[in-house]
């Protein structure tokens, strides 16, 4: 089985995000960028499938500008065998991403498409679902556990009500949640070897995909600053304060 994994370049989770003064977006100047953490989890799961002998080949795909190749190199250091870089310099909406990923999927014909449940930049949580819909294949989102058995996958999903176990036919789109696994440390020799693994570059035109219309970002603004808290001296005061706010 081939496993396809999508990875996205995002602002590192440790970075304190700063909105540009004119509200046109987030400041990316000199900001540390990394692989989306949920994609790391998806990568880890794919590599584990390969190590277990369930998967023969792991292919990483990213959509982004020149620099996004760095995240493909990270994916290759994780253990992907090769990578596909869909070069797009503009911002890509979830629907456009889904169209691109559908085209890559059709070209590669993997048995499983692993994705992160969402990217921590915009937290859209849409691309996985859209990709599966466009492909007309099953989806299992928010995976906390994944088992492959022949042509079927059993996925324990993390849903609001708790855990839900479903079975899907393969190929399917599975999106990784936080507890699916703990991604490994990249070993230094693997980091260096990744430099020599093949990365294929394609354009949207090569894939015959057009950007989806519809989404424009009008303004980016930081969340309102949290107001300072207050200190209470006694439990009675605490209860009174909570009542006052209508919380109890």
């Amino acid at each position, binding site marked *: 089985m081939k496993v396809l994994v999508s990875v996205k370049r995002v602002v590192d989770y440790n970075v304190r995000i700063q909105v540009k003064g004119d509200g046109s977006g987030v400041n990316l100047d000199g900001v*540390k960028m*990394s692989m989306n953490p949920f994609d790391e989890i998806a990568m880890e799961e794919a590599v584990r499938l390969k190590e277990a002998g369930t998967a023969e080949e792991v292919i990483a795909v990213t959509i982004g500008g020149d620099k996004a190749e*760095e995240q493909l*190199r*990270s994916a290759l*250091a994780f253990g992907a065998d090769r990578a596909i870089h869909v070069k797009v310099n503009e911002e890509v909406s979830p629907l456009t991403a889904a169209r691109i990923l559908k085209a890559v999927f059709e070209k590669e014909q993997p048995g499983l498409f692993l994705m992160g449940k969402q990217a921590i930049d915009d937290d859209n949580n849409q691309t996985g679902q859209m990709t599966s819909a466009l492909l007309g294949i099953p989806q299992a989102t928010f995976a906390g556990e994944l088992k492959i058995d022949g042509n079927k996958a059993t996925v324990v999903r993390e849903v609001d009500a708790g855990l839900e176990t479903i079975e899907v036919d393969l190929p399917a789109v599975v999106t990784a949640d936080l507890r699916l696994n703990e991604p490994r*440390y*990249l*070993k*230094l*020799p*693997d*980091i*260096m070897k990744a*430099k020599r693994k093949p990365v294929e570059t394609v354009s949207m035109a090569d894939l015959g995909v057009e950007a989806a219309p519809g989404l424009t970002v009008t303004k980016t603004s930081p969340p309102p600053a949290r107001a300072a808290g207050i200190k209470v001296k006694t439990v009675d005061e605490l209860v009174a304060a909570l009542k006052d706010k209508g919380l109890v």
Partner: protein
Amino acid sequence: MSFFTHEHHEIRRTAERFVEQHINPHVEQWEREGLFPAHEVFKGLGDLGMLGITKPEEYGGLGLDYSYQVAFAEAIGTCTCGGIPMAIGVQTDMATPALARFGSDELKKEYLAPAIAGDLVACIAVSEPGAGSDVAGIKTTAKRVGDDYVINGQKMWITNGTQGDWACLLANTGDEADRHGNKSLIVVPLDAAGIQRETKLDKLGQRSSDTAIIFLDNVKVPARNLIGQEGKGFSYQMQQFQEERLFLSASILKAMDRVFDDTVEYTRQRNIFGKSVLDNQYVHFTLAELKTELEAARALIYRATEDMLEGRDVTLAASMAKLKTARLSRQLTDVCMQFWGGQGYMWESSPAQFYRDLRLHSIGGGADEVMMQIISKHLGILPGKKK
């Protein structure tokens, strides 16, 4: 920095993650116990390929240039104490460079490869009770008897000394009058008969790093444990000091960053006389200047590294980097502790931790004054010397 590529950042990330998950949670305990489990920690680092970044691939290294080691040294400095990064530096940059450069294939297979893998812990044994700065003044002797060296003497303040498996030891093998041409570096297995090293020294700081006195009484070591040529030990050691000094300099940058950041945070939330401590111009101006010094020191290390990559002699730049970072670490931890007040004087505050730990840097690995001596020599301003 221009020479920091994606791979440098990945190496940093792996190192920082390792420190955060496998070292920092135990630092408090290891500091209290006066010992960290070097074999366990080094094995973890070795498994990830972090102990042989610049070492030849035949022995399990990565064969990369020194810029990658600087990235690693900086990252390992995210440790919440100074002792463990120093002990790691002994393994990668103090005890092994000469062996990698001049050792025989056999010797490298026996001692370098397992040090890179993290299976053996290495020490560098140069200093003696009577000779620290004055390296040429050491008294330990290694006499050739048949196929062996027989070693007698004492080595003082040896890092990793109680736990180490082998030491790269400097001894006099030749005529006493020829102070610079009579020395040799020899690999000494520390379980050899005649070695006594039970004395763990009690120190002001770097407490989780074990420091020992090693007594050598008629210790027999095969002559093939000689690194390179007999009589070249002093010059090999001088060369090996360059990596040592660059590593030491780079490894304390993040510690200074940490003390600095913690101080900004502490003084910002500490309200006295109706405003935060940080809001006093005296405080934030002083901090602004310290940060400037810190970035200048960092730039000096990168510059020295660039010199090394380009094959230039880095003695001057590495000595300057060592002098500057050591001095700055004393100033920075002292000033930051002051701005914290009583809370900064508490044992486990980060200013106190690094006030103790980094104080060593002006003494060990060549004292500040030794650096000034070297710098003066290179500038041609020593008395009686013309450039």
